């Protein structure tokens, strides 16, 4: 316990001490320049946020729907239910770089090229690494987190209110939508928080599916490539011709990445506690 705290403190203090000096408004509002030894990280911040938002939009409905099916509809002993559960658990154990390769193979090469063939006459629009594909790949990676958290939230909704709803002539669907899900929202948001933190920090899944080494402009469309903070840290640390010159920038980038993750978490926690208070329960 203390050890964990100490490690965390050392990391945070080191990052803040070395990173705070370069953390200016320019750094946050400009693109990188002069071979990444100067300028800022705005494209990486925007890219990270855009990717995480898209990922959440994709993963949350799919994950919640899966969990609702598994917990509210499927028979717990049915073969299909067991297969889905095994699949979800295995999905959670797959190394993230494998998700990257999967994203490249399935989303970029298969789905993207398919879209290009059908809608763009074979021109390369979606058939290349892009924000959309990176976000979807990350959504697949975070899906198990959302599913597990949602299932736990559903299980916490008491049987009493389900029975009450049924006794009033509600169908199962009405009970799920009007009684069970509203009570499960705080738990689902917990899942979303975990997914977002994971998605903001992972780099491997987006290596081949959308993250760019360097872009002077911000992403404008779903099929644009984008810069991402985690990947930018990797680039600054290992791919720069002059590592000493980029080190201060590196620290500041890490600081921003940490700050962004904390901010995303904190806002979700605030939303969750508001919902809890509104429900008047401690679920």
């Amino acid at each position, binding site marked *: 316990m203390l050890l964990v705290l100490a490690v965390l403190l050392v990391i945070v203090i080191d990052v803040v001490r070395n990173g705070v000096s370069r953390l200016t408004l320019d750094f946050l509002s400009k693109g990188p320049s002069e071979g990444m030894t100067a300028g800022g990280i705005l494209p990486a911040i925007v890219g990270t946020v855009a990717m995480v938002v898209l990922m959440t939009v994709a993963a949350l409905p799919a994950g919640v729907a899966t969990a609702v099916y598994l917990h509210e509809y499927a028979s717990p002993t049915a073969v299909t239910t067991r297969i889905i559960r095994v699949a979800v658990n295995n999905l959670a154990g797959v190394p993230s770089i494998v998700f990257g390769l999967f994203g490249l193979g399935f989303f970029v090469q298969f789905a993207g090229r398919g879209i290009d063939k059908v809608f763009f006459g074979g021109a390369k629009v979606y058939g290349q690494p892009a924000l959309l594909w990176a976000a979807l790949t990350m959504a697949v990676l975070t899906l198990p987190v959302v599913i597990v958290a949602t299932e736990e939230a559903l299980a916490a909704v008491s049987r009493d*209110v389900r*029975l009450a709803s049924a*006794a009033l*002539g509600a169908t199962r669907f009405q009970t799920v939508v009007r009684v069970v899900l509203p009570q499960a929202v705080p738990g689902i948001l917990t899942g979303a928080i975990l997914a977002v933190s994971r998605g903001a920090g992972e780099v491997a899944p987006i290596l081949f599916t959308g993250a760019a080494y360097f872009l002077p402009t911000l992403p404008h469309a779903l099929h644009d490539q984008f810069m991402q903070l985690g990947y930018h840290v990797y680039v600054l640390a290992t791919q720069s011709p002059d590592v000493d010159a980029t080190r201060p920038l590196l620290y500041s980038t890490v600081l921003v990445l940490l700050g962004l993750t904390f901010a995303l978490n904190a806002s979700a926690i605030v939303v969750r506690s508001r919902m809890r208070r509104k429900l*008047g*329960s401690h679920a």
Partner: protein
Amino acid sequence: MNYGAAQVIAPAQSGHLSVTQLSVYYGDKKAMGPVDMHIPGRQVTALIGPSGCGKSTFLRSLNRMNELIPGCRVEGEVKLDDEPIYGSNVDAVAVRRRIGMVFQKSNPFPKSIYENVAYGLRIGGVNDRSELGGRIERALEQAALWDEVKDRLHESALGLSGGQQQRLCIARALAVEPDVILMDEPASALDPIATARIEELIHELARSYTVVIVTHNMQQAARVSHHTAFFFMGDLVEFDRTDVIFTKPRRPKTEDYITGRFG
């Protein structure tokens, strides 16, 4: 006070239930039956018997709530006003709209008082504000709760006392205007004063609804019901006017139970 004493078995009225050869199984194990019983409309029928005698199982089979228990199977027939509720073309959801239920533990939704009572109406497609308002007021009045909550309709139902919560659950069940209200030990978790209010209410409800109540409390059965059914080991032992059951039961088993010799 014995509400049941002066009543006679009434002719078939709207809201009466006919039970024919009804048996309930959990998996392969028979939990109850076969039971034949005619529950008269617009009266209170009490189901008594020791724990595990099948009275709650019987109650749940009257509005098909037992179908929510995995492995539960029902044989036989239940008719509400001569319409079979277990027919292959009958929707359990539709049955539960006509035969409502109040549970042992009050279970209001974590919503406002207003939304709790509105719930059954809303899922039934009533969304007109003035209609909702009128029916909610009527239901709360019928449940003798209106005066206590009329100024706080939009506050959480979880802020009410236990007795108020249970009356809210009754109001919620009344709002959809069912023919029959089933009650599974509705007062067993309440203090004596709250219990008295619920009993008064049950008696009052019998003017407009058929009430079937499971109770562990024999004084309660004697106080509120017109008819009483005694269940033992999954069988219906005796069913008669409440005054008959409590003064001169025909079966020795019934007498043993009501005099407290067992159970």
